[in-house]
């Protein structure tokens, strides 16, 4: 097993693991973290080549995590009751963010979110009962979350 010790200043464990796994597949064993004051360890298979290690470092450098949260998971489908979606980024140079909202029936809406000091919000209402899925657009190396709100 190879352990790469790397400082990862902006770090979301599950997101980065998924991003590394999509590139390295079974060559990635996992990521261990010991807090902000110490480098993290990227555990790679003994057979990981120098090119693959370089690929891992490139994924880490591009890691741009976004956290998404909801203030509630159920609303009335009356066009008035709203759920507030909050996004926060860690990197000061984070890429723009947009949400993809999947409505009951499958139709999708995309909404760009403005960030102020790394935080942005969006209030969503619904008139169609059902479950709405909310996720980040272009989530690779940024988010693995899909949150759901039920309108009834």
């Amino acid at each position, binding site marked *: 097993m190879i352990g790469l010790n790397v400082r990862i200043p902006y770090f979301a*464990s*599950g997101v980065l*693991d998924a991003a590394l796994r999509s590139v390295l597949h079974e060559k990635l*064993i*996992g*990521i*261990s973290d010991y807090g902000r004051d110490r480098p993290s360890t990227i555990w790679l298979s003994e057979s990981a080549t120098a090119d693959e290690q370089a690929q891992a470092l490139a994924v880490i450098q591009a890691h741009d995590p976004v956290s998404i949260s909801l203030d509630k998971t159920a609303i009335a489908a009356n066009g008035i009751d709203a759920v507030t979606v909050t996004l926060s980024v860690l990197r000061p140079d984070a890429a723009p963010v947009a949400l993809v909202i999947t409505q009951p029936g499958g139709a999708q809406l995309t909404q760009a979110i403005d960030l102020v000091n790394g935080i942005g919000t969006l209030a969503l209402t619904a008139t169609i009962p059902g479950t709405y899925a909310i996720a980040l657009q272009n989530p690779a190396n940024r988010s693995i979350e899909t949150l759901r709100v039920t309108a009834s």
Partner: protein
Amino acid sequence: MPTFTPVLAWNAGRIVTATDLNTYVSGNDAYLLNRPNQKILRNNASNYTTTSTTFVDVDTTNLAITLVMSGGTAEIKVAGIVSYPASGGYFDVTVDGTRYSGATNGITGQDASSGGVCIAFSILVTGLSAGSHTFKLQWRAATAATMTLQSTSAMQVAFSAQEVS
């Protein structure tokens, strides 16, 4: 640190000297009353996390104990608060680099997710030769998701080792 001197086979006619008594009685008593041991209460100021699905050291520097032993048996104890990801996770201890249990899922853990539950276990390591031995806490997640071990001023990891015989 007192040292243990293997006791002589006493033969009839041997003159017992002060050196003999100090070495084999006083010295060995002192050793037995203060066997090699180390206790760690680890405040890492930040929780440990891993997504590794292979056993890895929790903290190769700070959750590691080396004992210089005269006896052949040590007891290792571990306690902490862990959050398990989906499908769970597991703990083991290495003895001089080799996992104690050797089992796929180590010594203990659980097979399902949960937040903030107690992990506590002790093991008896036997058959050790006299000399230096290193014990390290290891863990792995059952699947590639984040497993967390709390290690802050509010909740520390307890890791200890003691020669018992």
